């Protein structure tokens, strides 16, 4: 199930494509139809760099059925460098490295799967920046 939905979400999930208002330049992720800043409807796609910092994080020990196999897993709110904030999982991170303000970058990973015969959902997760400049 949910095949059209996973297909439809491929741009934001794999490439972190959101929106930019052509009137006031405000950036959005996920994409919007109307700019919440100036109400303009002239909106174009915008590709985010995938770089950001951890605004907050939590280790989840009890979750919904499709995430049961991944417990414990780490979720976070991440401030993207371009502005918007995003909800995502953190990956490739030792627990002692977790902290607010940690620089992170986007990677595409498996997010969940619906049993043996269901759809495997891929999408963005964030990991500590590998090669900080």
């Amino acid at each position: 199930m949910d095949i059209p939905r996973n297909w439809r979400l491929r741009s934001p999930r794999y490439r972190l494509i959101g929106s930019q208002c052509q009137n006031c330049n405000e950036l959005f992720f996920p994409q919007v139809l109307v700019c919440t800043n100036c109400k303009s409807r002239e909106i174009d796609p915008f590709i985010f760099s995938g770089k950001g910092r951890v605004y907050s994080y939590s280790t989840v020990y009890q979750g919904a059925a499709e995430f049961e196999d991944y417990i414990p897993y780490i979720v976070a709110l991440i401030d993207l460098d371009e502005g918007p904030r995003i909800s995502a999982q953190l990956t490739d991170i030792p627990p002692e490295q977790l902290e607010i303000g940690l620089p992170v970058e986007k990677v595409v990973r498996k997010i969940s799967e619906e049993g043996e015969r269901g759809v495997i959902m891929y999408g963005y997760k964030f990991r500590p920046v590998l090669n900080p400049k």
Partner: protein
Amino acid sequence: MSKVYISGIGQLPVREHWDYSLRELAARAVLLAMDDAQIESADALYVGNMLSGILTGQENLGTLIAEYTGLEGIEAIKVEAACASGAAALRQAFLTVSSGILETVVVVGVEKLTELSGFQTTAALATAADADYEAAMGLNFCAINALLMRRYMHEYKYNRADFAEFVVTAHRNAVHNPNAMFQFEITQEQYSKSKMIADPISLLDSSPIADGAAAVVITSNKKSIIPERTVSIACCEPGTDTIAVHNRNNPLWLKGVEKSTFKALKTAGVSHQDIDALEGHDAFSIMSALSLEAGGFAEKGQAVATANNGEFDLDGRLPISVFGGLKGRGHPVGATGIYQIVESAMQLRGEAPNELQLEDVKRIMTQNIGGSGSNVTTTILQKATF
């Protein structure tokens, strides 16, 4: 605009009601409220419910419950606003009655959360968040509240143990409420040792999954009411915010709560000092803190410290969760908003359990919050004047 009165109330104990179906729960609460109001019919039935479709495979609740309570043929609909469905249904009934279009409306909040496993219920509750950009990424409601709590602790320099006060107070009050799910006390030590669900949120920060139903009869017909047992609805005001927490500039400031609370105070023509008690939405202890601050009942970043000063205790400046709140009474989501109304009406009638009855209580605010602060309805009840 007509004045709107609560002429009847009814509630079932919040429990794991394995022996009652959804329709049985709702209908019993409706009949209790109708008996209390001494009426046999009404102009409409509004049902507050969030998850009947997912968890029970049943929608069209208006028709179902009207038929099962002998009200078939009247206007009957379900209203959904996540965990605030109960108060949202009350708001619709309030608009209908205060406008004069209908005279007497029954509002019932009902939720059956124990039909399926905890995993399925957790997933169902997460439908109040953004399905594509929060829930699909693994953020359930505990996780979203945990992200808020961690940031709150970081910005305002609190420890996890500081939040125990909200939980200890709620349970201490719930002991005396026979309709509460948890009629026992929790100690600071038990809170500290509680099992983590989504760090820093533990089991004891979280309101329990439960079944329940509560109902009220509201009317503009002064002839039909018993003056000393009647409470009036001064206002019932909504406020909303973004569905996803990540789309808020400051996630620690609940704009929906701010809008709803201040609109309610303005409509009722009263100030914060005129509110004698608050039945708020402590789905998680962090929600208590954030909503008290956005609602103007505590300074920014100070709600936890204020709670630890005892200001929200039964004998404090502003008693909260008097009947146990969501934590102690339980949180049957779509029913919660109506439980708050029923409890506050009991308080104003002088019918609260002795230990919970406040002295000289004139005006109570109830606040029902859906999602993580995204859909809010605030109601002010007061003793009716004629």
